[in-house]
């Protein structure tokens, strides 16, 4: 009896804290939504930022997709993300496997070496990369963009996979090798599946950072047909003023795929590392 009351009290407390935090957190989100449904006239009519407009300007959303070409940009971004993210995760997992589960000499040194990539501010890679890309004709190609994205993503992914793989019991490997498996089979059929939670986490984080990446996408890709979402959103920022309703509507539309990815993959947190610990 006592245990149950305690549980209820705990639960109530949890809800209370969460709701307070949520209220604090929600203000900017509400602003985003309210602005997205405002027409231009609402910005000069003295309407408060947090008041509803009389007429809901749904055309902001349709305009963003068509005139704003948001549909095209989202399509491009989706292509890039869906190809780059799994590939990057795969390459990094291979490297993490080598670092943690093979007899690699100076593994720690290699590991730290590979982490340097996280520390590089992207801006300084711009000029050297574009010099090379121009020589190789890689400007304006998705291959060129993938290559540089994967390069920047590798460090973080190796960090995560490394930490995760370290915690998997080595007895599993031994059992596999005794059964006659080679390294590749061990990696691909046994270890990698165990890494599901880490892969899911990486999928979400990498998808997000690739989706929202602005600097490299705007400089490497010149052809308008190939541009991505963040670059596309910047077009809503005009020379002499921004159509805020339009911009916010565009922002809301552009986050849908990312949230979808999050919702699909987030259940893997629950499963956790239970499998590995056994």
């Amino acid at each position, binding site marked *: 009896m006592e245990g149950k009351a305690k549980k209820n009290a705990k639960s109530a407390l949890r809800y209370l804290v969460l709701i307070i935090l949520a209220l604090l957190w929600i203000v900017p989100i509400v602003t985003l939504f309210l602005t997205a449904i405002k*027409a*231009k*006239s609402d*910005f*000069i*009519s*003295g309407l408060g930022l947090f008041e509803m407009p009389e007429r809901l300007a749904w055309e902001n959303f349709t305009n963003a997709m068509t*005139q704003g070409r948001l549909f*095209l940009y989202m*399509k*491009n971004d*989706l*292509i890039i993300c*869906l*190809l780059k993210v*799994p*590939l990057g995760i*795969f390459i990094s997992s291979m490297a993490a496997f080598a670092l943690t589960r093979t007899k690699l000499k100076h593994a720690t040194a290699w590991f730290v070496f590979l982490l340097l990539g996280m520390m590089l501010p992207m801006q300084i890679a*711009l*000029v050297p990369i*574009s*010099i090379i*890309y*121009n020589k190789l004709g890689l*400007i*304006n*190609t*998705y291959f060129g963009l993938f290559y540089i994205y994967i390069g920047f993503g590798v460090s973080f992914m190796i960090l995560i996979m490394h930490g995760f793989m370290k915690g998997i019991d080595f007895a599993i490997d031994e059992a596999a090798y005794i059964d006659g498996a080679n390294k590749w089979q061990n990696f*691909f*059929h*046994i270890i*990698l*599946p*165990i*890494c*599901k939670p880490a*892969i899911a986490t990486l*999928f979400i984080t990498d998808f997000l950072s690739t989706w929202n990446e602005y*600097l490299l996408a*705007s*400089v490497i890709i*010149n*052809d*308008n*047909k*190939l541009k991505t979402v963040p*670059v596309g959103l*910047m*077009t809503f*920022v*005009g*020379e*002499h*003023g*921004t159509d805020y309703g339009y911009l916010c509507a565009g922002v809301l539309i552009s986050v849908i795929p990312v949230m979808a990815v999050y919702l699909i993959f987030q259940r893997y947190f629950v499963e956790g590392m239970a*499998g590995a610990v056994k």
Partner: protein
Amino acid sequence: MKGKSVKKFLSAVLVGTMTASLLAGCGGSSGGGGSEDSKDSESDKAASDSGVDLSGVEAIADIGYEGDPIELSFWYLQTRQEGTDVLTEVFNKANPNINVTVSYYDTDGIKDACKTAAQSGSMPSMWFNWGGALGQYYVDNDVTYDLTEYGEANGWADLYTPGAMNLVTLGGQVSGIPTSYNVIGVYYRTDLFKQYNLEVPKTIEEFESVCATLKENGITPMDTAGLNGWHVMRWIEQFIEYEAGADMHDELQSLSTSWDCDAVKKGLERYERYCKEGYFPDGFITASPDDTYMAFGMGSAAMDIQGQWYDSTLQNNEVTLENVSWFPFPNETGRMSAFAEMNQFNKNLSDEELEAAIAYTNFLFSNEAAKIYPTYYNLPLPRTDADPVDPAVNPNVQDMLDTSSENGTFTITDQAFPTEVADVLFNNQDAIANGETTPEKAAAAIQKAIESYQSK
């Protein structure tokens, strides 16, 4: 358990690839090869959708080029994409041996892209740029085509307005074709002035008393916003023009005389005084200049210092121009601040490519083109044969330009200054408003920045 994740992984890749190829097939977009076809269909669709009559531009598009096929690239602002796509298509069709491809960027992106391209040797055939220090970088680094001779040979002095030509002549060379010419004046709310019995000020003292009256009645006199510094600068440079007079101000703008001088100090003191009197909006320092139209449109601010494009901007944001007019800032010289935009050309163009590129530029910035897509240009065009702007639609534009021709102009400060010096000015603007520095120290700091720039 173990097979599941691998399967999921593989299926994700599979789905990804399938989706990619499906979508790629739909839009012809993943390699650049199909871009011409889709460009045709997109821009044709755009043109026919909006019912635009292309006959005017079609008539002038053919430049009679019969030589070898030429590929040209043009980097331009994203805000002008709609019209430019259609016009480019018309040009390409009329000149089958010339193919112009336009790439679009936002205002910051185009600067980044051009800088990176300049350093990696991959500038396009032609690109949009602003005059002054921004354009000068490309001249100084020898990537622009020096058009001085070409201009002389082709009578540019008679084709383009002198004010505009002046602003695109950088480092002694004609570094581009001027594509827009802009002047700055004080826009004001006629209804608010009427309400408080205010007359358009003709002297700076009158201006101050107008501000005082507005302030007393709860209206912000001078609308401004300090993010990125240039809007506040527009007010301050007028104060300096007043204190320095025309000749000295020109010397100041060309950095040939010290900014650590009385005129600058007095100009900054005036600014400081206006800050203390509260003539600017609260918290203006980090407000965005994109938003000044809101206070102006709402009537909570009475004056905004803007260029002649403001007629269009206000209308685009549904502010009616009924209660809006303008006056030149009473700086005693009557001069207005001015700046230009231009197209610059790649130094390595062959003679034929140059001809084609210049022809394209003149086509894109022709009266016929501006007629069908007026919102994509800062009108009127800086050509001596430019169609005048319709005063019924944009009442203030022609008046502003005429006044600037009569009274003369000075180069806007953030184009006259190299960017690093401009930033020091902007920082000091903020600091004075926050009471962190004095006009004296600010003037000295600006001069110091100028000197260290010049000694580089």
